[in-house]
């Protein structure tokens, strides 16, 4: 299909519908409001399920129930609201249910502001729910990639029976770009949902959706099983884009909106005769650690750029294994840096070094 000009949040809604979304449960919060607004129209038109819940807490638990009943389910929210969903996300991971969570980040902490931010990297990749669990976190840099990852995200969730988060900032949610809604994504083998609580007349025995395990030995085995699953996800689902890595004087590490801004900076620096590469993680969990092995030995250093005070920089330190210098440049509170600031950070690299 030809490309259409569309706002990020609307594209998220339409991509979800195209991916076969059966049910959406959400609660209003800026800057993601167009997602539920459009879905309330799209899903009603298609005879599917849309519920505006009384809170984010209720919404994520409706997602739990509907996912357990076998539906393709989604919620969307932003920073403060995602904080409230964390309990439910832990349960959904523990009970091994598929669900898609869209997080359109705004600035924090607390009520913060409604401007774009990347200060919820920890919230997304470390989570605030309890226990040993992981959420697959997909971090697109454009509306096209957001649409493609929404479709992939549902399939990844189904394949591994695990929650998947699509993490964008308010800029991607609010801006308009041309997008092809019908770009095909990788076909996956997805097992029928034999675990769903559809009533015993529809399956052998009783289906129980549960995360409780008072017997420590049972719970230990369950956690080992989850670990094995997470290892499979790490092995098969890590996604990264590498740009201009050969002969890079410096390597920028950035995701989402900051990756786009850094691309512009890389062009400017090239004109100045400085060769800068980029590692752009597309999955924030699992993190593309192996990409760091491709940084040239004589690279002068890594620059991490984020719209936060430095969160992904922790994963860069882990992945770098002390091989290169690491610098960090970021702006918090809802300020989107200009490409010139990134250019300047490379030109004055030593000023921003956080790990020698």
């Amino acid at each position: 299909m030809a490309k259409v000009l569309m706002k990020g949040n609307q594209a998220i809604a339409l991509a979800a519908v195209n991916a076969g979304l059966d049910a959406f449960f959400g609660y209003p919060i800026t800057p993601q409001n167009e997602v539920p607004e459009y879905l309330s129209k799209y899903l009603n038109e298609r005879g599917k399920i849309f519920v505006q819940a009384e809170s984010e807490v209720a919404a994520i638990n409706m997602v739990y129930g509907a996912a357990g009943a076998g539906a393709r389910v989604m919620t969307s929210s932003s920073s403060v609201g995602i904080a409230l969903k964390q309990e439910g996300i832990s349960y959904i991971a523990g009970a091994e249910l598929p669900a898609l969570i869209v997080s359109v980040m705004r600035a924090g902490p607390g009520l913060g502001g409604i401007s774009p931010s990347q200060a919820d990297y920890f919230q997304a990749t470390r989570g605030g729910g309890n226990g040993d669990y992981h959420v697959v976190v997909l971090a697109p840099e454009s509306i096209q990639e957001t649409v493609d990852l929404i479709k992939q995200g549902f399939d990844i969730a189904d394949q591994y029976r695990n929650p998947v988060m699509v993490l964008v900032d308010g800029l991607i949610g609010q801006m308009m770009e041309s997008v092809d809604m019908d770009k095909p994504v990788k076909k996956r083998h997805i097992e029928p949902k034999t675990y769903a609580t559809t009533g015993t007349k529809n399956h052998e025995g009783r289906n129980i959706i549960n995360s409780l395990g008072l017997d420590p030995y049972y719970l230990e085995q369950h956690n080992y099983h989850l670990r094995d699953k997470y290892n499979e996800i790490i092995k098969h689902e890590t996604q990264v884009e590498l740009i201009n890595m050969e002969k890079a004087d410096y390597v920028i590490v950035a995701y989402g909106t900051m990756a786009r801004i850094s691309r512009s900076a890389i062009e400017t620096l090239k004109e100045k005769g400085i060769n800068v590469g980029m590692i752009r993680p597309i999955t924030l969990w699992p993190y593309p650690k192996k990409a760091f092995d491709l940084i040239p030995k004589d690279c002068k250093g890594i620059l991490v750029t984020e719209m936060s005070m430095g969160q992904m920089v922790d994963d860069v330190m882990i992945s770098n294994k002390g091989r290169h210098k690491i610098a960090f440049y970021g702006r918090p509170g809802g300020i989107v840096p200009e490409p010139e600031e990134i250019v300047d950070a490379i030109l004055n690299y030593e000023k921003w070094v956080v790990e020698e």
Partner: protein
Amino acid sequence: MIKYERSKGLTDVNTHYCPGCTHGILHKLVAEVLEELNVLDHTVGIASVGCSVFSYEYFNCDFQQAPHGRACALATGVKRVLPDNVVFTYQGDGDLASIGIAETIHAANRGENITVIMANNATYGMTGGQMAPTTLLGQKATTAQDGRNTIQHGNPMHVSEIFATIDRAAYVERVALTDIGNIRKAKKAIKKAFTYQIEKKGFTLIEVVSTCPVNWGMKPREALDWAKEHMIPIYPLGVYKDIEKND
């Protein structure tokens, strides 16, 4: 000659409930109703957090186990996806009236076509006898050691009365398990609630005055008497909402 058989609505396992606890009776009533209405094979139960957390092991149907207070949110998700299945939650007073009051009220207000069974034993049983929203004035709790008082704790919450004010609640009744007569009435109420759900009449809630002998520090018989003498005057039994009659 078999005179008494376990309901097909119950699994063949021993429950973990304490001696004299009325959860056993309540499980039996719900199970018998589901069996008699012939809906067990398309029923989905939602277990809560508290003593009834393990109810998914005892009812012979599909089940989901909910986070504390969120049973009605799960039930909403299940029922919207499976509108022709029977969906019920089985919750305590702490789970429903304290941490889960928002989820329950809004499920009722949306008219979710589900049945809520709430055991009211005026205490947190599973965690060991802390004060509940339903704890009586003067009643001692591990977190209200001198007894509940109005100034510090507020007064007992009247769940059935609250839900009777919700437009889209179809049926609300408070029953008790204190004696044979009341147990029979409780079963009738539960059957009516599930029947309303099957007829897609809307949200139904049955509040069940129950006992917790262990945390009340009483023998089972004394607990039944105490519930009768002290709880029922504060929590009067009866039908609080019936859309078939009020319209």
